């Protein structure tokens, strides 16, 4: 009897594992190729980051380029004496990424139309609305929504936050897989530092899997030398900047008015 019970147990385990393996085989597929390195040189003026990989044929792709989350101290503008607009109280947005660029084949709201209520992140939350929902503002104020709207307006104007469609190209590869290529436009207003490339596979409006890569952006050439000098040898940098300016001024004055020096 005992042995029989043991056999049943073994069989049960086998079924469980086999069943598990079955779901693994049908698991959502997403493979992202490592992104190319990005360097900011003297002539950098924004760039296009091309992201490639493969995704399950039935899934939709959402790609994000996200900067480090930081606290953003700002001033709220208001009317003093009910008449004059000026900077009033201080507000600090917390968990605000320096850059946030989302790209998908169709608008996120359309992807979300699948309407599945299952667990997991919704496609619509991958965009700016979701970002704002995860951010906080200090001090806690009643018109949080209005403040976030203003922040998004400002960041959009600066080209640092955007939600784009149309940059995703799908190709065909295998029956169940499709290849993708995404052109992510990176802004000219970009600082060196650590960023993250994120790819999401969306099925019926819900994220089924994701893959990330860290992206490190570094300065090269003269830009790097200048930056290092300004931060590591600040006094020397300040003195040099002054001396060059004085010499430049003198040189121009001499060249320009050289012929008729009064003294």
């Amino acid at each position: 009897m005992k042995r029989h019970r043991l056999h049943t147990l073994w069989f049960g385990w086998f079924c469980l594992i086999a069943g598990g393996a079955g779901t693994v085989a049908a698991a959502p597929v997403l493979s992202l190729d490592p992104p190319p390195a990005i360097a900011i040189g003297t002539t950098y003026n924004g760039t296009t980051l091309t992201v490639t990989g493969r995704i399950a044929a039935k899934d939709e792709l959402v790609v994000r380029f996200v900067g480090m989350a930081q606290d953003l101290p700002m001033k709220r503008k208001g009317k003093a004496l009910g008449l004059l607009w000026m900077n009033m109280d201080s507000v600090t947005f917390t968990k605000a990424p320096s850059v946030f660029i989302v790209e998908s084949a169709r608008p996120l709201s359309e992807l979300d139309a699948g309407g599945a209520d299952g667990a997991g992140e919704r496609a619509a939350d991958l965009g700016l609305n979701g970002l704002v929902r995860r951010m906080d503002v200090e001090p806690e104020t009643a018109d949080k929504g209005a403040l976030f709207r203003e922040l998004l307006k400002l960041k959009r104007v600066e080209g640092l936050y955007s939600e784009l469609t149309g940059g995703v190209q799908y190709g065909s590869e295998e029956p169940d897989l499709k290849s993708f290529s995404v052109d992510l436009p990176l802004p000219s207003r970009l600082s060196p530092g650590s960023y993250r490339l994120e790819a999401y596979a969306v099925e019926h409006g819900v994220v089924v899997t994701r893959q990330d890569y860290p992206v490190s952006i570094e300065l090269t050439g003269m830009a790097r030398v200048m930056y290092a000098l300004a931060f590591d040898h600040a006094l020397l940098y300040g003195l040099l900047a002054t001396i060059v300016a004085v010499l430049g001024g003198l040189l121009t004055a001499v060249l320009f008015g050289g012929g008729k020096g009064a003294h």
Partner: protein
Amino acid sequence: MGMPWHLYLPIAGNSVNVLLIFGLGGVVGLLSGIFGVGGGFLMTPLLIMIGIPPTVAAASDSNQIVGASTSGTLAHFRLGNVDFKMGLLLLVGGVVGGTLGVQVIKLLRQLGNADFLIKVTYVLMLGFVGIYMFQESLQSMRRAKSGAVSKTAGKPSRYNELLGKLPWQMDFARSGVRLSLLMPLVLGILVGVLAAIMGVGGGFIMVPVMVYMLRMPMHVVVGTSLFQILFTCVNVTIMQAYSNHTVDFVLALLLLLGSTLGAQVGVKISKRLQGDQLKIILASLVLLVMVKMLFELLLTPHVLIAYAGGH
């Protein structure tokens, strides 16, 4: 095609169009050569508009003014328009005043609503200085036209009497005035305090002070003001680079290329204009800036938040 028209500014963290910055520098240099003002009132907001962080815009502009004012000072020196003695005294006063002003602004901020007070004072002051200068130069031009040659402007002589009674009188040969040593020192302190509180270079306040309170001829005012601005901006550039890392030298260099040239052209234009003409144009410029600031205060801004740290 091959020539890159954009350069990346490592400290500002953004790229800019080379020609645009060169042109901006040229225009502001021109103004400084003609009127003896630094031009920060114009340059800093324009740089912010094209995406340079406010603190970097102001600091790099100081760096640029060092070049433009060197170029302008030398050109004015050749024309005999720089009163070094007066300039140095004003400068000493300005440094003391600037240090004092920084403390005053700390106190104001603690009291709260400092920004409101500063902005309103700035607008009122620009308005007052602009209107006074405009009226005075207009009257003076009319007088000149009608043939009445009056050497001193029509100010009550009680002021002259008071000036004469002060101790430590000395001659300022270049300006052709005899004044107490205290006058430029005290006025320098006053302008230094105001400039520090308002976060401006002070050229706008200094020029009228030199014209009306020190009674210096307009052309010597322009040259001497540039000489003084040069030293103020050397100080600001080094301090900002050292303690805040906000000087973008690439940006300053691009601006400099335009502004040193602009300053030279400005000096040539300044030479052709009469003192009263210079004053009335500067007065119009001051009033224009005032109107612009007033509009900014009255019209609803496009975005209702701003980065902390700017003006």
